[in-house]
């Protein structure tokens, strides 16, 4: 654990030479605090996992994966996703169908009732069908984890699912394996979670557990949910809800944390016009569909003059900007509109 902050410092020091030191100092701070949070979280998770180890040793390897830093964790998740994608074709067609349902649910929550019923039917058909469902949910769960840490919208889904699954589990489960198998479905979409939890409660555990065991050793699965009464339930769940209400913070958190590397590629750290550091409002400000980012000061100044985007030379359009915000995914959703209104007010 103690090596992580230093490693981030090292990785920070490389771009620091290329760009503004102040800028990176700021980022480093954010990064470090995110790491600290992550360390605390991981420590707690480890504690919990060590307890779990005593109860059932099955979850041990997963626990190791979860205890790593978030970046590594995500990488692991991706690895697992790849593994499972490789496994996927071997499964039944219903698996694929189920998986498709999961993804469509991600896109539009309104789909969830239909997919809910369909997957319930699937689950009720036979035990084997259910196994298929569970393994497909494994794969989608890892997908959910990856995307959950990248974009905001899916986070919400994850959060709800975790809570729902955890509650459902607390109501029905006593055994850890069962816990584990349903945990796999944690970050799923709403419909399927309900489906899974209903299955968990509806079906007798004897039917489910062997199936779960059959799939588990083949593909490493992450442990992702906690019972509500668990003393070591990590603080990340309330944190997630906080991030939901304040998307700004969450974006910052994630950029400081796991997906920092990805984000830094697309969002410049300093305004290309004035070379000043982009603060958080600036980095989430996307005034033009061409994707050219600049700080609010420079944008205002350009609006006072010719009002054309430096990136594409097209006129900035207010209505278009607002259209862009709705199209824009995740944490950038509402802020551009807000910053525009700021400008028009001034």
């Amino acid at each position: 654990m103690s090596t992580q902050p230093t490693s981030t410092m090292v990785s920070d020091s490389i771009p620091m030479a290329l760009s503004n030191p102040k800028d990176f100092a700021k980022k480093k701070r954010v990064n470090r605090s995110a790491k600290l949070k992550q360390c605390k979280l991981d420590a707690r998770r480890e504690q919990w996992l060590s307890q779990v180890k005593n109860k059932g040793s099955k979850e041990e390897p997963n626990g190791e994966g979860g205890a790593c830093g978030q970046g590594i964790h995500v990488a692991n998740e991706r690895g697992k996703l790849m593994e499972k994608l490789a496994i996927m074709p071997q499964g039944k067609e219903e698996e694929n169908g189920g998986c498709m349902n999961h993804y469509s649910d991600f896109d539009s929550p309104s789909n969830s009732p239909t997919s809910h019923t369909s997957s319930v039917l699937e689950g009720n058909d036979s035990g084997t069908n259910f196994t298929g469902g569970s393994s497909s949910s494994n794969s989608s769960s890892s997908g959910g984890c990856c995307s959950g840490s990248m974009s905001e919208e899916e986070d919400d889904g994850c959060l709800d699912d975790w809570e729902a699954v955890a509650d459902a589990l607390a109501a029905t489960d006593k055994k850890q394996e069962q816990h584990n198998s349903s945990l796999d479905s944690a970050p799923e979409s709403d419909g399927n979670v309900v489906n899974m939890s209903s299955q968990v409660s509806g079906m007798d555990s004897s039917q489910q557990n062997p199936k779960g065991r059959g799939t588990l050793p083949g593909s490493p699965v992450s442990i992702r949910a906690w019972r509500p009464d668990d003393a070591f339930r990590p603080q990340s769940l309330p944190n997630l809800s906080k991030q939901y209400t304040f998307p700004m913070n969450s974006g910052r958190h994630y950029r400081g944390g796991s997906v920092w590397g990805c984000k830094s590629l697309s969002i410049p750290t300093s305004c290309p016009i004035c070379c000043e550091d982009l603060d958080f409002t600036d980095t989430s400000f996307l005034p033009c569909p061409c994707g050219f980012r600049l700080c609010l000061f420079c944008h205002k100044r350009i609006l006072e003059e010719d009002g054309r985007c430096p990136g594409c030379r097209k006129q900035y359009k207010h209505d278009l900007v607002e259209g862009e915000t709705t199209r824009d995914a995740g944490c950038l959703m509402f802020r551009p509109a807000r910053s525009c209104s700021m400008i028009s007010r001034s």
Partner: protein
Amino acid sequence: MATMNSGNNSNTPATAQVVMPSPKQTLSTAKTVDTQSVLKRLQSELMALMMSGDSGISAFPEEDNIFNWKGTISGSKDTVFEGTEYKLSLSFPTDYPFKPPKVKFETGCFHPNVDVYGNICLDILQDKWSSAYDVRTILISIQSLLGEPNISSPLNTQAAALWCNQEEYRKMVEKLYKPSV
């Protein structure tokens, strides 16, 4: 305590002296508040240009004024300007980069879009200017302009007329080329 006091006493005049010039400075900085960001931008452009390592282009501010730069462009390979090198002057307005810099050839350049005074007819230095351009992209653009002139709106009609005959044009370039020291 005595030593402390004496130390403080000796310090206070010094700090007073330090403080004294600051009101004057604030007056001057109030004027240069605008140019402060321009300075920052130009400095980072200089850094970027030196780090980029682009071949055939270079630029550096004049000793006394960072708002005036001297640049060099070498003629691209496989063009009539191959083997020639041109000095340019770039002068940045105080509202740079919202307004383009004034760029002129210091070395005489026989080119359809460069007049005898070294003025350059290049859209990105005029109406097509974007604040996203910088010295590096300007110099690269001028370098590519050398090999790809816009014949339809020439400043130098003789050069424009001769452009179709590349061999003759090459001879003319060599004849007129006077490398500056």
